Each structure stands twice: as C-alpha cells, then as structure tokens.
C-alpha cells in the first residue's frame, strides 16, 4: 500500500522508469531466451501434444475424463496414489523431524556426519536402491532371516510386493526431501529465542512446544508438500516393491499408453496428475514466502 502511494505521489519517477526498466527487461529477455526456446521445443510442445490427446483421442470430447472419473479401477488408482503419498509423507515427517532436530541442534561435526548419512543414498540410482530393497525384504532376505534367527518371528513376514514394501522403499528415497527443508528452517531459528523461553520459565518440553515447533512450521509445510508432490508421480519403487493392489497413477499411465495404446486415457490421467501437482506447487510457493516473513525479522 505504501508503495502505491509513493508512486502516486511522484509521477516524475513513473515517467522516467519505463525507459530504464524497459531496457533492463529487454536484456533479461535476451538472457532467458535460449533456455526458454529449449524448454518450449523439448518440453512444452510434446507435453502439450500429449495433453491434447486427452480430449482428441480416439475422438474429440471429454469422454476420457468421464471414463476415469466413473470406472472404479481408475478411481481406485487415484485414491491409492493419494493414500500412498499421504502415508509416505507422514512417515517421512515422523522420521525426518527428530532427525532434522538432532542435526540442527548438534555440533558442526554431528551436522556434517548426519547430512552425509542422508545424502549417501542420493548418489546411488533409484533403480539400484529399489532392487537392493527387493533383496533385503524378500521372504528369504536379510531382514526376515535376521528376525527368524533372533526368534522374534517363526514364519517369514511379507515385506515386499505389498503396501509395506512400497512404504519402506519410498520413505527411504524421499526422506532427504523432508529432512533438508526442515533442517534449513530449524538451523535458522535464533538460539536466543529458545534461551529467552527458558529464561522466562519454560521447561525444555514447553520451550519445544511453544517456541521451537511453531518456528519450525514453515519447514514442516515445505517438506510435507515437497514429499507429497514427489510421491504423486512415483513409478519405479511402487512398480517393483508393490503388489497388484498398490498401483499408482504413474504406473497406470505407463500401462495405458505402453501396453494398451490407450493414448486418450493415459493423457487424461497425466493431465489430472499435472493439475494436482501444479495446485500443490502453488500452495508450496505460498508457504515458502511465509517462511521468509517469519525468518526475516525478530
């Protein structure tokens, strides 16, 4: 509001600004042009063509959308996708929050060691990691053998080719995307706020609940949205570690197009996924700005 009034009060600035601003915009445009053209040709055009097929294949109309929102198989896969993504998000939050907390409150050495541990799996391909889980989690795999040997179980557990396998695999892959936004926000929380709370009479649990937790919320929101969005489009992990009832939307798209040649249905599913993701990304953008407001001033 102050800015608008300022501009209205000084028309001469407004008269001067367009020239210099215009020149600057021209320069900026020239700089982003190559990358924009590249994206346009290799991404926007083919994706646009694909999305167009959702209303043009096999005939023009919205019948593809009608199909996916009416037939139980498609609805069940959409529900699966949301439930699995939500569960993975919750699990990564429950595991990631204490981890990020220890990391943010630890010594610089602890911080580096813990960041390293989270990052190491990043350097291995998802495919390799997923097959590794397959080996570990199968009926005669290391996990079951160990549990049997220790006497905790007598029959091997079904840890793979079902929902549990999907959760384990996806959680491991996505944990860093929860830990790092949390750590980024937590490590910027001013220690003097925690000292102040303690000085004012708050025992450690109250310091955490009343001060640390609310100040870390922007990180929680960023991490939750990031992991949820990434989960929505997951393909390899659920395909290899899940069972027939754990099919997610990305697998369905692949199946429709790759195996049945159903370009229309596949494109419609892709459009639904894209719109859902864009909406969540917009939400994420809003909350990351909120983080800046909280962190900016004290």
């Amino acid at each position, binding site marked *: 509001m102050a800015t608008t009034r300022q501009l209205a009060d000084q028309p001469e600035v407004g008269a001067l600004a367009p020239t210099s601003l215009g020149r600057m915009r021209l320069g900026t445009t020239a700089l982003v042009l190559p990358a924009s053209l590249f994206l346009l040709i290799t991404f926007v055009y083919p994706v646009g063509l694909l999305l167009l097929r959702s209303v043009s294949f096999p005939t023009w109309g919205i019948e593809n959308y009608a199909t996916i929102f009416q037939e139980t198989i498609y609805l069940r896969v959409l529900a699966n996708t949301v439930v699995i993504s939500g569960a993975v998000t919750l699990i990564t939050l429950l595991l990631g929050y204490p981890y990020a907390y220890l990391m943010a409150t630890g010594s610089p050495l602890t911080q580096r060691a813990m960041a390293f541990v989270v990052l190491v799996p990043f350097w291995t391909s998802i495919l390799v990691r997923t097959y590794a889980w397959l080996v570990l989690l199968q009926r005669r795999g290391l996990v079951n053998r160990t549990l049997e040997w220790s006497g905790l179980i007598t029959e091997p557990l079904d840890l793979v080719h079902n929902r549990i396998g999907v959760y384990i695999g996806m959680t491991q892959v996505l944990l860093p995307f929860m830990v790092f936004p949390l750590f980024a926000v937590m490590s910027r929380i*001013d220690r*003097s706020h925690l000292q*102040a709370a*303690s*000085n004012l*009479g708050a*025992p450690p649990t109250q310091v955490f609940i009343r*001060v640390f937790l609310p100040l870390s919320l922007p990180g929680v929101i960023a991490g939750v949205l990031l992991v949820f969005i990434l989960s929505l489009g997951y393909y390899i992990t659920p395909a290899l570690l899940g069972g027939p009832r754990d099919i997610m939307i990305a697998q369905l798209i692949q199946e429709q197009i790759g195996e049945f040649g159903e370009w229309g249905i596949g494109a419609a599913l892709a459009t639904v996924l894209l719109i859902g993701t864009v909406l969540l990304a917009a939400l994420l953008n809003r909350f990351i700005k909120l983080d800046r*407001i909280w962190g900016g001033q*004290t």
Partner: protein
Amino acid sequence: MSSGSGIPAAVAGHGDLQIRNLRKTYSNVIAVDDVSLTVHQGEFLTLLGPSGSGKTTTLMMIAGFVPPSGGTIVLGGRSLTVLPPHKRDIGMVFQHYALFPHLTVAQNIAFPLEMRSLRKSEVERRVQAALDLVRLPDFGARYPRELSGGQQQRIALARAIVFEPSLLLMDEPLGALDKKLREHMQLEIKTIHHDLGVTVIYVTHDQEEALVMSDRIAVFNHGKIEQLGSPSDLYDRPATPFVADFLGESNFIPATVTAVEMHGLRLRYDRADLVANVAPAVAVGDNVTVTVRPEKTLILPVEAPGSERIGRENWICGTIADVVYLGESRKYLVHLSGGVTLIARQQATSIDMPMLQPEQEVVVGWHANDCVVLPGQSEAGAEVTSAGAEAREMTTRGVA
C-alpha cells in the same frame, strides 16, 4: 551523578547476588578468570569492558546458559550454580530482544506468566500493567516485526519484568538503537529500575552508558575485574592504566619519583617537576605513570602572565601539534619536549575565546589533586591507549 547513593553497601541484604571465584574456560582459552562479586539488592551494576573481556560470559553464567567451570553463584541465599535456567526466576533482556516472532506483543509478555500458571484474568491485568509501564499501552495486538527497534526494546523489557523477578539481566540492550533513542532509553530504564527496585546487572562496552546508568561499575579486562566502584571512583581514581583509558580519555605521563612526602609525591618528567596529592606504595627512584584527564588541564600560551598560572601546581611546556574543534569544547594535542603527546580539553565558555594555533608554544597545567599516580610505566600506557581506541571505535560502530 549517582555514586552508590542509597545503597546499604555494608548490610548484606537477603536479596544479594553473590558470585564467588567464578571461572569459565573453553579448551585452553580462559574466558572468565576467578571473578568474585557481590551485587546488592536493588543495585544497578554494570559489567563494562571491551569485547572478549568476559563480561557477557559472566552474565550468561548468571542466567544459566553457560555452565561455569568453577565457582558459585548464590541469589538471595539460594544457590543457582547448577539450577537450570527456567528455575532461576531471573529476568533477561537479550541483545537483539529475542521477542517470539510468532506471538503478538501481549502473548510475548504473557509467556512467563503462563509458564507460572497464573489465572487468565491475572495474566491479562499484569500484561496491561507492563504495557502501561513501558508506555506502549495499545500495542498488545501487534506482532514484534511491526514495531520499531525502540518499541521492541521496551516490549522485551516489559516481558522481562512482568513476572517480578528479583534480578534483571540486560545484555547490551541498547546496542542496536541510534544515539538519541539510546540516551532516551537509558533514562527510561533508570526510571523503571528506580520504580521497581529490582536489582539490575547491565552489560555494555559503552563507557558513557555505564557512567550515566550505574550505581557501581565492574570493569572487565582479560576475564578479570580490573576495578569495581562507583562511576566517580572509576573516573577520578582509576586503579590501573586500563581503567583510566577505557573510561573516558586520559593522558599518561611516564615519570620518576623524586620524593615521597606525607601527603603526596614529588615527581620528575623530562625537565618538569610535578607534584601529586596521592600516596601509592612507591619509593624514591621508582618509575611511575602520572594520569590526568584532558578536561582537568588548563592550556595557556607560554607568554601568558604568571598570575594566570596561580592555583595549579603542575606545569609542562610543549608545542601544539593539532587542534580539534568539538563545538562545546576544543581539544589540543600538545607535543611535550620529552616525546609524550598530551591531550588538553578546554570548554568553550564564550564564542570570543581565542583559539590557540598549531606550532604555538604553550604550557599545560593541572592541580596536584587532579592526577592519579599508577605504579610502573613503559608500554602499558600505549597498550591501553590502543585498547581504548578499539573500544571507542566499537561504540561508534554501534551508533552507525
């Protein structure tokens, strides 16, 4: 100026803070080295010193955020040494206020009261009283980021005293404010201290602030207390060259004791004979340092009639090297024949007062009462001068 007035120094009040042999070492660095100190109930005590002198570490040990390596802290007969911070019941104003950004002003001030499980109506009443006290009665619903630096400072103060602690710690609370506002807040904090009767321990590196606000000042240097006393004790009777230089400006003149008399000393610097009305433990032939404040000196042209020199026992000849115009006063740098440069300050009592010029031959004089003789000399003076300059520079930066 207050000089420990109204403080029953001899009576050990039951609300006294007693610090005994407090130490803090980090691996091989000694941050606080065997500090002992008694702060009387209701007193305003300032810990003054350059950065890294141990004053903030001492404060943090009293607050409970830094565990001491040795020594004891007792407040009102209760040992604080191993008590966690939230059980100490000590108010604290942090350097950057540390107001909770996610809570409103009223919620910030209510925080310590809620931690003490007060009734809701009582919390509301006390929050409003605290807001009234810091003269921001209508700011309860705002968020800290919507306040100016001075307003945040007041809210931090309100939050620190709303639960009526017997001891209030302040860690360079005015460092982030501009000069005018700082001077205003100094008086306001003094008033609140007076009205509430709370004991205050105030940390600053600003010697002027320390002189204005304190009942007593503890000057810290290298983790130890160099001198503890009222502002006038410290300013007029500094015990060490460091104190003389850190509090205000000082001249250091190396001299040799020529005679020890009943009420003072006779000394010699270069070709000048000096007298001082103090008797530290020195003997004839000892090398000492004579310190005298620039504003306690009188500077005259060498040709001035002898009658103008009457009343001051000490006179030294020199040449003006530089003149600094300061508005309310003038500062002259005078080269003495023995190689020392003196600073002489003269109040501009009249616009018509003639200004002395560089290269002019002058005499600088002072009363035997107005100088302090410190044992030893050599580089001590030079060293503290640079330390003092550093501290003053920091103060200036704080303003900017």
